[in-house]
């Protein structure tokens, strides 16, 4: 990789590799490093010990470190940083790295490695870190020369945070962390092989504008790229300017306020009828920072064949996301924020307005889909309905909490019923769908925003995948609120078994559950069990009033409840199963 060597490479203090690593982090303005020590990183821990700028958060399992750093990044937009030891430290971290990679989260992961001379000898706690992580990082490095360390870490931050973001790993052998070099942190790095496109093509943006203005049945479909690219203001402005319907993917929630009447809800496998039908039936589709994945449009052949005349404009910073599953008519590669700004300016400068009559007819059509009220559930139920809990959570937190979730039915209900008004408030694993992220995500968020309300909506199965982090929360006083929608089942698995496997509930019942109240107490927190609908709101209020305590709300919910609507796997978007169909 070509780099402009800093002119003063010969000057600067002499530091050990370990000290250099930590100094680089502090130069990058890193507040927190989430990690776990071990033999290969002992010099780095020693260097951490000797300074105060970068704070280390000791997790209880490396997976937790990665998820917490990832959650911090999702909530703040700044890169998350994790530090783990070689061998098992790395393999434990892989789930967290892959989770961040699938959702394009900027992270820098520093891993210890056995000394350079021992590499390849099957040394104690050796693994091929660069090899194991290669398919789930944006890039990775093995640093063999201490003189290359600072510039490599600079490159890692640069690559992680530019273009389509992602995790970058820097593997540091123990001897490299012990050797010394002159420290100089470059302001900039130049990589001839890496220069992500930022500015969208003007001609394409004009074409997009014309298509949008000529549309009779337009739809704006916004994904996680708009959140990552800080474009929610522009998304909202464009949607309001044109008065077009707008849907968000699971990852895009909050990129337009859910209270806006043009927001038709989330789309996809568990999307609303109005979002999925508008998506399937529109004549012009504007996709912003989204990737037409299988959980969103279902079967791409059905999506295309069901409406072959639909024109698609796709804005994305990653050219490989465009025309991957669905052929696009007007591709625009660039930063979504900049492209939308240009598009808005063009529309404002021109005299043309969207076809008002066509738009009114389209909105009338959408109203009939909305009238299906596809998210309705039994509000009079004597058993606690999970949807009701999320609605109450929204009320109690005034719709302004950071909500993390795990993976399963509870995740979908949180996405459907917590009406997000702002971006970066909804923190979940969309791409990899990793159970266990919820609690460490909440830790990362709470560290970043100590004053904010942070709720983790979880399930009794998911929470047990990183439950050990309750101890970390105690150590660092992280008073997050856990909302455990306890249905005694891996609910999402049970739902699929009910629909597609003849009610054979193979291994999805959660037997031998712990007493979560006692468990929370054993870790030094507050536990509450809620069993009646009438007690839900009170318990939530009490939990959030306990400002300085972590509260584990174990809420016993309806075992039989399913997530609706549902587009079965491999089906088309308009082939939804609704609650009333069963």
């Amino acid at each position, binding site marked *: *990789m*070509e780099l402009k060597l800093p002119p003063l490479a010969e000057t600067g203090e002499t530091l050990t590799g370990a000290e250099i690593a930590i100094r680089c982090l502090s130069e990058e303005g890193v507040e927190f490093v989430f990690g776990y020590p071990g033999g290969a990183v002992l010099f780095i821990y020693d260097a951490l010990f000797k300074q105060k700028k970068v704070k280390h958060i000791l997790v209880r399992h490396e997976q937790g470190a990665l998820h917490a750093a990832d959650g911090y990044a999702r909530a703040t937009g700044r890169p998350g940083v994790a530090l783990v030891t070689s061998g098992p430290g790395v393999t434990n971290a892989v789930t967290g790295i892959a989770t961040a990679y699938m959702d394009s989260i900027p992270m820098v992961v520093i891993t210890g490695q056995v000394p350079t001379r021992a590499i390849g000898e099957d040394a104690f706690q050796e693994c091929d870190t*660069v*090899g194991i992580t*290669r*398919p789930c990082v*944006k*890039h990775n490095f*093995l640093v063999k020369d201490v003189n290359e360390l600072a510039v490599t870490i600079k490159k890692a931050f640069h*690559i992680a945070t530019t273009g389509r973001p992602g995790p970058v790993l820097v593997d540091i052998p123990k001897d490299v962390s012990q050797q010394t070099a002159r420290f100089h942190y470059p302001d900039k790095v130049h*990589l*001839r*092989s*890496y220069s992500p496109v930022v500015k969208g093509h003007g001609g394409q943006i004009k074409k997009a504008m014309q298509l949008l203005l000529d549309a009779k049945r337009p739809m704006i479909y916004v994904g996680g790229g708009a959140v990552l690219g800080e474009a929610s203001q522009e998304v909202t402005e464009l949607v309001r300017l044109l008065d077009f319907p707008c849907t968000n993917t699971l990852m895009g929630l909050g990129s337009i306020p859910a209270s806006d009447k043009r927001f038709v809800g989330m789309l996809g496998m568990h999307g609303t009828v109005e979002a999925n039908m508008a998506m399937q039936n529109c004549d012009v589709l504007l996709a912003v920072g989204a990737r037409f994945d299988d959980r969103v449009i279902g079967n791409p052949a059905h999506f295309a064949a069901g409406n072959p005349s639909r024109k698609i404009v796709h804005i994305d910073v*990653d*050219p*490989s996301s465009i*025309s*991957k599953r669905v*052929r696009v008519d007007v591709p625009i590669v660039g930063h979504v924020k900049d492209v939308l700004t240009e598009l808005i300016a063009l529309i404002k400068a021109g005299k043309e307005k969207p076809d008002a009559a066509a738009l009114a007819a389209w909105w009338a059509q959408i109203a009939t889909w909305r009238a299906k009220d596809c998210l309705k559930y039994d509000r009079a139920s004597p058993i606690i309905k999970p949807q009701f809990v999320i609605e109450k959570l929204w009320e109690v937190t005034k719709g302004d909490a950071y909500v993390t979730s795990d993976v399963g039915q509870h995740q979908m209900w949180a996405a459907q019923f917590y009406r997000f008004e702002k971006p970066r408030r909804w923190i979940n694993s969309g791409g990899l769908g990793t159970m266990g992220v919820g609690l460490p995500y909440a830790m990362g968020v709470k560290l970043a925003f100590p004053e904010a309300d942070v709720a983790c909506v979880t399930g009794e199965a998911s929470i047990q995948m990183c439950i050990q982090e309750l101890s970390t929360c105690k150590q660092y006083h992280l008073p997050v609120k856990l909302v455990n929608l306890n249905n005694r089942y891996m609910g999402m698995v049970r739902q699929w078994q009910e629909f597609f496997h003849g009610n054979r509930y193979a291994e999805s019942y959660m037997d031998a559950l712990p007493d979560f109240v006692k468990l929370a107490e054993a870790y030094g927190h507050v536990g509450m069990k809620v069993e009646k609908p009438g007690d839900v709101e009170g318990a939530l209020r009490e939990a959030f009033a306990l400002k300085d305590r972590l509260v584990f709300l174990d809420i016993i919910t309806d075992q039989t409840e399913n997530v609706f609507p549902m587009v079965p796997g491999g089906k088309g978007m308009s082939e939804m199963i609704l609650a009333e169909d069963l």
Partner: protein
Amino acid sequence: MRHILSILVENEAGALSRVAGLFSARGYNIESLTVAPTEDATMSRMTIVTTGSEEIVEQITKQLNKLVDVVKVVDLSEGRHIERELMLVKVRAAGKDREEMKRTADIFRGRIIDVTDKSYTIELTGTTDKLDAFLEALDKGAILETVRTGVSGIGRGEWVLKA
């Protein structure tokens, strides 16, 4: 459709596995892959022969460009180009077959580069088709061993792939 992708990559440890890993992870075909340093020692040049629809090859190109170590990707099949492959074949060449074997090699402009009283080793360069044709012209039973480098390609005329 068959495509010949020419790729400039940083001459870094691991660059080859990033490219090869991309093909296996995403289920793309590799018919052949060659790699060696270029006149600029910091860069290597790879030639990959792959097959797939236009959409797939477009995705392959985009995904390759996304790799941080990849400096440039060109689909040689999109323009006028020259492709060559080197093959070494060891054949049975004893008794009455010996003369015939030499003649066949000559027709294909192969060179005999090693000889024993029972065998020839023949060196042959050309397009993949030509090498295939040569093998087909031989009696299957006569072939003892074949080694092929895979295709290397270059643009015709002034068309140059540079960083």
